[in-house]
């Protein structure tokens, strides 16, 4: 189950400056654990003390925010792309 993950600049110090990672995972929760295996420390940045994704962080599977899907239980399949995007102001 190879999933491509886009890593924001803020987290690239955990990924040896790589902007993308390939991970094996069948859900977002599993993906975060898998990333922690290959990039120790990254989970602590992505998740709060309860293990939930931080509230100023947006996670997308392909084009969809996981909060519109099944949250961290959102299923992943081969070829999916996951984006990790910090919240930004706008208008």
């Amino acid at each position: 189950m190879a999933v491509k993950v886009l890593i924001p600049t803020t987290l690239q110090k955990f990924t040896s400056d790589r902007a993308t990672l390939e991970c094996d995972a069948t859900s977002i929760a599993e993906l975060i654990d898998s990333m922690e295996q290959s990039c120790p420390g990254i989970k602590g940045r992505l998740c709060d003390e309860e293990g939930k994704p931080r509230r100023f962080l947006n996670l997308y599977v392909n084009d969809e925010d996981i909060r519109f899907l099944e949250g961290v239980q959102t299923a992943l399949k081969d070829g999916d792309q996951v984006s990790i995007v910090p919240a930004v102001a706008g208008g």
Partner: protein
Amino acid sequence: MFDEYFCPCYHRPQLVDAHSPTETMTQTIQSPELATQATFTALKCKECGAEYEPQAIHVCEFCFGPLEVSYDYNALRRQVTRESIQAGPNSIWRYRSFLPVSTQTPIDVGTGMTPLVRANRLARRLGLKNLYIKNDAVNMPTLSFKDRVVSVALTRAKELGFSTVSCASTGNLANSTAAIAAHAGLDCCVFIPSDLEAGKVLGTLIYSPTVMAVQGNYDQVNRLCCEVANTYGWGFVNINLRPYYSEGSKTLGYEVIEQLGWKLPDHIVAPLASGSLFTKIHKGFQEFIKVGLVEDKDVRFSGAQADGCSPIAQAFREDRDFIAPVKPNTIAKSIAIGNPADGVYALEIARKTGGNIESVSDAEIVDGIKLLAETEGIFTETAGGTTIAVLKKLVEAGKIDPDETTVAYITGNGLKTQEAVQGYIGEPLTIEAKLESFERALERSRTLERLDWQQVLV
């Protein structure tokens, strides 16, 4: 609400970004004159308090909280007086000491110092006694409050050495970034949703930036831009320059204080998109209190959203302290942000000041645009229509005291969103160039008035 529970790094000692402190210090120390002028000291995480050098970064690397500029308020208290502000330029740069730039020659295109209009006719119609309109529909150069934030962001972008600037925009920000980049001689590439109003697209293209019309809503545009910002060394005004950009909105607070004769209002009503403007007006008020420029007073903060994109109003109504993102569907495209980054802070301010956050339908928004135009001669866009409609709703619900000095912030110009009102306003009476033709038409129009004729929204 923002307690240490959310942030494991809350108790860490204050941290300084290890990447480039030396370069920054060198940049600011090169000119002693500039160094003494700059009163901003660092970027600080609003969630956990971690501190960083004032570089082009916008999120805390520990908790992803937004970074905000902090200042040396003791220095500000010493440096700034009402007189020194009044002696400054007739633009936002009269408040330069409160803005995160170190140059003495910021990009000044006459932005700010827009009229604060005593709105007597609208007040009477609504049943208020002391209503003012802060009219950024005539802000310069591109007729929205965004000129304030962009003037600050691009001034800072130049200081940080960027030659290309960019933004994700619902229209107004694109207009402003493209125009002020043209003035400053910066390359510009803007990203907008592909379904924007024609006036906003044309009002960007005229300045010849590169325009990417993205097939998706604003939240999707923003996501794409975050990914672009990761790989291109551009200054995105609302991403990596966001801490500087958002400070520009404080001037909407400063100006109202100064224009009210150095007094705070009792109540403000402002539109809510990402929530940034709302929180920065609050910060502006607090800063002037802190340095002694205005006497402290409670100010109630009320926010306006469209029903078709009201994640903050919904959270307010349901007494939640988190924002559930929504997919926007409203004519108020300039405030159609389904995933508002500063929503939780806007919620907190509305609650702690005794304000409200309300939403209104698209039909009410159109009525709001027309009401402001007919009573005050101000043609605003959909965001302003939302603000006026919410103002009306709050008055009708008894949530604004008629005696309160109330300021409604009108942040954009109606000529940019003509589509919103087409079909809901009158049409010209086409006549021949003959007196009898005119008289017939005049009689007809008076008959229609007597019948209280008006078009009905469908």
